[in-house]
């Protein structure tokens, strides 16, 4: 029993955090909103240089061969700086390709992913939209009972303007053929479920970083902003709002880290674990957004101030890879209808 990260894992997280703090500034994030694609191939190349896209690509395909426990720490940093590059969808797609029973597609694409030469997009039943389909070199899409891998040239995209300036959503149509099919029936079902779980976990991890940053923005502001002759951060009304968000973040983090382990180890309760992580982390991020806005007051309600940059990330993450209605239903089914084994971490009720 060891519920912590290794020194190497924390070092990698720190490396990515330092890199992003220098490269992915709020100004740069806003500048990306205005570009045609909203995504930067140059930035992706730099991410590849520090190993981010190949993190969970198996070593046999040129990746680092790490797992979801490593990945959550990196995605937390992605959220902290509101980076919108397709780090998560590429990781989810890579894990999916690596799990295919037939290795041809993986052999073709995973080395490119690890080298930073290919980005991936992933569609699933819980959303009519596919994020970052316009920059993905390969799209992994469900159709019927199958799962398909389709190059960008072969899909039709219909852009859907999002409230979040960083978000790029598309309705995607394509012709499902035997040549695009990479898995069917049971295997496809399993891969689609795994992709949804990994995507939800990744959103939860990013939401933690988003929440942290929203609280930091609010605390920094509350320390320097004076009213009634004192910093507003000295008022208990302000302190207590922020303390409540801190409580939510702390306990959401525990769910997120555990569900990373559950996915990496394919534990029987992983679906419920992931749903709890997604619910807790997105709730913390949404609450951090509202609280940060309130602490900032009118200035926080302006376009110029950065609160909304992170707040809108929180809204997007809450809806991606299963919204809260979906995850609450899954939690209820698991716990109350006992769809998952009636035993939790350590504690099992009498009679089991």
């Amino acid at each position: 029993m060891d519920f912590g990260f290794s020194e190497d894992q924390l070092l990698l997280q720190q490396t990515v955090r330092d890199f992003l703090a220098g490269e992915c500034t709020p100004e740069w994030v806003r500048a990306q909103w205005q570009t045609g694609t909203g995504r930067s191939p140059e930035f992706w190349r730099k991410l590849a240089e520090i190993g981010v896209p190949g993190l969970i690509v198996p070593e046999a395909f040129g990746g680092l061969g790490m797992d979801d426990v490593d990945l959550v720490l990196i995605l937390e940093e992605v959220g902290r700086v509101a980076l919108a590059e397709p780090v998560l969808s590429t990781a989810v797609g890579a894990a999916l390709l690596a799990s295919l029973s037939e290795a041809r597609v993986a052999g073709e694409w995973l080395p490119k992913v690890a080298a930073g030469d290919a980005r991936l997009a992933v569609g699933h039943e819980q959303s009519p939209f596919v994020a970052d389909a316009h920059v993905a070199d390969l799209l992994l899409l469900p159709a019927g009972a199958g799962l398909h891998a389709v190059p960008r040239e072969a899909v039709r995209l219909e852009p859907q303007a999002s409230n979040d300036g960083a978000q790029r959503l598309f309705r995607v149509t394509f012709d499902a053929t035997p040549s695009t099919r990479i898995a069917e029936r049971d295997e496809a079902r399993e891969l689609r479920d795994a992709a949804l779980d990994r995507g939800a976990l990744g959103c939860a991890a990013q939401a933690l970083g988003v929440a942290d940053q929203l609280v930091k923005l609010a605390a920094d502001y509350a320390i320097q902003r004076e009213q009634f002759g004192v910093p507003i951060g000295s008022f208990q009304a302000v302190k207590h709002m922020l303390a409540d968000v801190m409580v939510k973040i702390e306990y959401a983090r525990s769910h997120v880290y555990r569900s990373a382990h559950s996915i990496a180890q394919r534990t029987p309760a992983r679906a419920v674990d992931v749903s709890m992580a997604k619910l807790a982390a997105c709730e913390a991020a949404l609450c951090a957004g509202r609280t940060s806005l309130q602490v900032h007051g009118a200035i926080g309600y302006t376009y110029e101030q950065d609160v909304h940059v992170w707040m809108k990330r929180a809204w997007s993450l809450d809806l991606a890879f299963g919204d809260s209605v979906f995850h609450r239903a899954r939690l209820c089914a698991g716990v109350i209808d006992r769809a998952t084994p009636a035993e939790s971490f350590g504690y099992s009720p009498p009679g089991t």
Partner: protein
Amino acid sequence: MDLRYTPEQEAFRKQARAWLEANVPAEPLPSFDVAEGFEAHRAWEKKLHAGGYAMVPWPVEYGGRGADLLEWLIFEEEYYRAGAPGRVNQNGIFLLGPTIMEVGTPEQKARFLPKMASSEEVWAQGWSEPNAGSDMANIQSTALRDGDVYVINGQKTWASRGAYAHWLFGLFRTEPGSDRHRGLSFILTPLDLPGISVRPIQKINGKAAFAEVFFDDVRVPVENLLGDEGAGWNVAMATAGFERGLMLRSPARFQSTAWRLVELYRETLERGAPVAPGMRERVARCWMDAEAYALNTYQTVTRLLAGGRIGAEASLNKIFWSELDIEMHEAALELLGPGAELAREPWLDGYVFALSGPIYAGTNQIQRNIIAERLLGLPRK
């Protein structure tokens, strides 16, 4: 990260489960806040102690089992699973004991810990005073050095277990004229010394859960000073860290309540009683939060085993478990419908107890101040 238990840990769980199944009283004991229940709980503690389970993480020489904190959590899981009695000496074994382990002299450890583990000596907590509640640094009771004794004068209040306990630990001002956190010392005193009078206070259910304790020229030997003279505040904060999380409120307590709530929800549906829309999600959410508390505690234990310490983040725990406890009981009472007000209802008893959670061990408002000031760096003034 590896969230599996080792074979040794699994074996320990099995062993503890078997012992508890064979020994836990079939009928619940009377409340330890009445005289008869207090003695019944001490008898249970004696049995636990004889079985080697009174305080599993303590060294064997002090009446423990020499286990680590993970085995402690496993034991707690089994303890709650078995529905075993509450711990009458919790002020001692969960709060003072770990503090003595940290700052006590070898003589103090040998003198106090074994009798604490066996509950031969049951402890009360003596921190609050009439004018030092949330503002604990306003303590006025004095303990002035006179040769090899401290002479104590003043009044403590809300001393949990004070009505029946044998000893009390508390903070007293040892430096005359000192102010706030400075000049306080952590002193241990028997409650039967001349000059001490104890006046039990009934809590809202009418039971004497705590007491006022009056000191009138009470002479306590200087060996009963815990930690350095004048360093009492810091010693007390170490104790508070245990009180706000890990030891006093181990997660199994909330996980067992959460599972009982799930069962209550299912039974209520099965007997066709009306259930509010939204109750399904409310119950699942309680279970999820109890799970979060367990996970978080395992993270803390991993950190402590690697040499870390409990700090201001204990305040996050205190808010989380105390509010969860109330929410679980309120959900249960709603499920019970009109039966919720019947005095025999155990959920009602649990609810009354849960209501004290956001108040004791530092109110939740004090915890929010600590979080904002110490974890976020917001200004005190």
